[in-house]
Structure formats: C-alpha cells, structure tokens
C-alpha cells in the first residue's frame, strides 16, 4: 500500500483547489472591484471547498501522522533545524480537523528559512533543501536517497 493514502491525496487535492480559488478571489477583489458577481462566485467556491475539506473523513490520517513523524521527517528533513516540531504539530492539527495539510509546507518553508539565516549568521555551510536533494538541484555526496513515495509527498508540499 502506498504510504500516502488515497484520503491524504484527496485532501491535498482539495486544499490545492482551495488555494487556487482563494488566489482568484483575491485577484477579483483587487482587479475587478466593479465586477462583484465574479468575486461572489469565487467566494462561493471557497466556501464549498472549505465545507468539503471539513467534512472529509480523516480516519486514515492517524496513519499519515505516524508516517510524518516516524518516517518522513527523519528521512528527509533531519537537516532542517526546527522543522520537526512545527510539522508534527501541523500534522496533529490536520488529524484533529483543525488544520490544513498545506500548513506542513509552510512549517517546512519557515524552518528552512530560519535555518538559512542562523547558518549564515554562524558562518556555517548552507543547508541543502530537500528539493535540491531530489534532483531539482545538485546532489551532495552525503545525500541519502529517499524513497519514491517520500519524494512525491515532499513534492506535493513544495508545490505552490
């Protein structure tokens, strides 16, 4: 069985759609102030998607949390200081129905940024972000190659 369940994929898909609808809503509000109908339409999509996300069955997400905590983070994000705590908390919020999977990506990005600035201040080598270690950039010699599933999951997180 794939480590990322159908349920998680479904939720990620819904949250991506929600993010896109929100972006369009903001664009309408900004650029098409006079066209209130269009803005209302996007607001309606955002509302419906929000309801669908809220109503999504989360029973399998316990497995997902174990995966994030016990496998994904140690395997991929161990070099990003501070990522683990934030991501585990975000995953717990998702399981409790109080958060979105996209928060994991935010936690990861924030931790990456924090880590960058700390290392710069201390004069240490820059950290190698996960996306660089997965063939989107150069592979450092110490790179531990992740599983395909872990790679796919991180790619989902990093998708804007």
């Amino acid at each position: 069985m794939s480590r990322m369940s159908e349920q998680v994929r479904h939720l990620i898909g819904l949250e991506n759609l929600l993010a896109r609808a929100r972006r369009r809503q903001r664009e309408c509000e900004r650029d098409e102030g006079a066209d209130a109908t269009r803005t209302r339409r996007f607001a309606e999509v955002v509302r419906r998607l929000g309801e669908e996300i809220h109503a999504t069955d989360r029973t399998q997400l316990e497995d997902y949390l174990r995966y994030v905590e016990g496998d994904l983070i140690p395997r991929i994000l161990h070099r990003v200081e501070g990522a683990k705590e934030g991501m585990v908390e975000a995953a717990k919020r998702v399981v409790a129905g109080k958060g979105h999977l996209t928060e994991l990506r935010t936690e990861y990005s924030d931790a990456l940024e924090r880590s960058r600035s700390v290392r710069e201040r201390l004069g240490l080598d820059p950290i190698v972000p996960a996306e660089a270690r997965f063939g989107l950039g150069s592979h450092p010699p110490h790179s531990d190659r992740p599983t395909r599933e872990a790679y796919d999951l991180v790619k989902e997180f990093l998708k804007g």
Partner: protein
Amino acid sequence: MTEPGPGADLYRARLQGADLRGKDLRKANLALANLKEATLADALLTEAFLFAAILSGADLGGAHLAHADLSEADLFGANLRGVNASGADLRRANLALCNLRGARLKGANLRDANLNGADLTDADLEGADVTGASFGETGATA
C-alpha cells in the same frame, strides 16, 4: 445537481463524455466540473463560470464562450476550433495541444496560459493579454 441549462448550478458535476452539444449553458456554474472528453460543440457558454474545470479532450468547436471564466481550466488537447471566446478569462489555463484555429480571442485574458503546441492558425488575438503565456514546444514565453 441541477439539469444543464441557462444559469444552472453544475459545480463539480461529473459530466465526463457527456453530450451537451448546442446546449444553452449561459452563465452556468461549471466550476471544477469534470467535462473530460465531453461534447460541447456549438454550446452557449457565454459568461459561464468554468474555473478549474476539466475539459481535456473536449469538443468545444464553435462554442460561444464570450466573457466566460475559464481560468485555470484544463483544456489539454481540446477542440476549440472557431470558438468565440472574446473577453474570456483563460489565465493559467492549460491550452496545450488545443485546436484554436479561427478562434476569436479578442480581449481575452491569457496570462500565464499554457499554449504549447496549440494551433492558433487564423485565431484573432487582438487586444488579448498573453503576458507570461508559453507557446511552442520550447516553452518560450511572451
């Protein structure tokens, strides 16, 4: 879900392969609808709301899409020959490998749209915004 018709609410409707040829769907809400390989030839979709709809492989030949919102829609490989999409919003839409021969895209918003491999022969793009759109197989941007 309501029946297809003017102003119909077909949000997230599953209409894969449906035959909606010539239907009057003006101002219909088809946001996130799955219309993969559907037949919408000559359909009236003026001012329809098709945000992020899946229309890959659909036949929209001769459809009326003026001022429709097709932003972020997936139209990969769709037939849009001779459509009237004047003033339509196609920002970030996937129009790769589409047949857009003779399409009227006057004043359309094609910002960041993917037009790689699309056939734009005799298409009218006067006043269209193609900022950031990609054309051709090389991924060249406007």
